[in-house]
């Protein structure tokens, strides 16, 4: 057990900050984020013997965290109202007709971006964070979210569009 927990600690603790950040974005609450991370680590440690060394440990940890979130009260509430519409059909991406100038960001808009991410439905928020913040490849995202790569592409495209729409709305409100 000692050697196993040492090996787990060595692999898992470097992910602690980023898992916490992701958990906080999902739960939007510090206490719940801490509970979620704690439960994730406990589950992962228990199941570590079933983890195959050499496979993607990061995607494995994120998958445990996300599945734990989805079965929590906050997760169930957050996903209850979301319909994924036709996105599962494949990677058909809409061409953006907007003028690029309209999506150029002002230098002082970090708070606006935070608030726009906050306002996204949870399935858009998580995929955008995995891609842009965690810099996961489409393959890693597919493994983490347990969805096909085509769905990663289409959902990501919709998430980005939703974020741009959110930013534009904020700019209009002034």
């Amino acid at each position, binding site marked *: 057990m000692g050697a196993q*927990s*040492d090996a*787990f*600690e060595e692999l*898992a*603790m470097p992910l*602690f*900050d980023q898992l*916490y*950040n992701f958990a*906080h*974005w999902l739960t939007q609450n*510090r206490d719940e*984020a*801490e509970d979620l*991370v*704690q439960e994730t*680590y*406990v589950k992962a*440690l228990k199941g570590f013997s079933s983890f195959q060394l050499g496979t993607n440990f990061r995607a494995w940890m994120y998958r445990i965290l996300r599945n734990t979130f989805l079965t929590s009260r906050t997760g169930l509430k957050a996903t209850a109202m979301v319909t994924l519409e036709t996105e599962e059909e494949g990677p058909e*991406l*809409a*061409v*953006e007709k907007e003028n*690029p*100038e309209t*999506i*150029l*960001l002002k230098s002082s*808009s*970090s*708070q606006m*971006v*935070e608030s726009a*991410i906050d306002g996204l439905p949870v399935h858009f928020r998580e995929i*955008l*964070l995995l*891609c*842009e*913040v965690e810099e996961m*490849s*489409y393959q890693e995202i597919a493994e983490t979210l347990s969805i096909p790569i085509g769905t990663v*592409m289409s959902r*990501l*495209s919709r998430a*980005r569009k939703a*974020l*741009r729409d959110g930013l534009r709305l904020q700019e209009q409100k002034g």
Partner: protein
Amino acid sequence: MVCDSWKTKLDTYLDRELPDEEMRAFDAHMRGCASCSADALARVQLKRAIRVAGKRFAPSAEFRRRMQEKIAPKPQRNFRLLWVLAASALAIVVAGALTANYVRGRSARDHVFSEIADLHVATLASSSPVDVVSTDRHTVKPWFQGKIPFAFDLPELQNSGFTLLGGRMTYLGQTPGAHLIYELRKHRISVFVFPEGALPGLGSGENKDLSFSMETWSQGGLRYFVIGDANAGDIDSLAKLFKGGV
């Protein structure tokens, strides 16, 4: 619209997830299409903004300690261990201060690199990327006289494969500098020169960001950046010409 098929894949291109052949075709298209380049620039800025905004939450030290204990419970503390812990705490404080300093420095450095990448892309997307159009360094260098508050030398390019296309004035923050554009096998490469005093603490080295290769160094009181979509070896070759020519 002619570019619709490209724009459909623009995000995938910027995520560097297209197959190699399509990536190369896209690179070539971007060099010649101002509309797609401008669109790409806007999306890159948005990606960066998400990256910055998305790293918003950090766990408390107390929570980290609790988790550490939960995962790998340590043996009962004894008197000797208390000394070890005290020493560790001191080390953490010192390391924390050093890390904070490093993170601040790194964040400033990343910001400068982002700005340089934006300047490079924005210039290539412009319909008139250079203000002085000449392949002759003896024409381009004097053009900067009186326009920027420092002087610099341009290297001899004979047999190097690089061609000087021209130059323009540029600004990084409030600092005026020189922006030179070179060509190598249809790759456009930018060289930026700024006074070092305005950009302290950047160090030297290579950086790879968004399919661009970048190299930076300080020499003779000036800060140089070489950036382009050519491979890192080509960027380094141009950097070496400048290092030898200064």
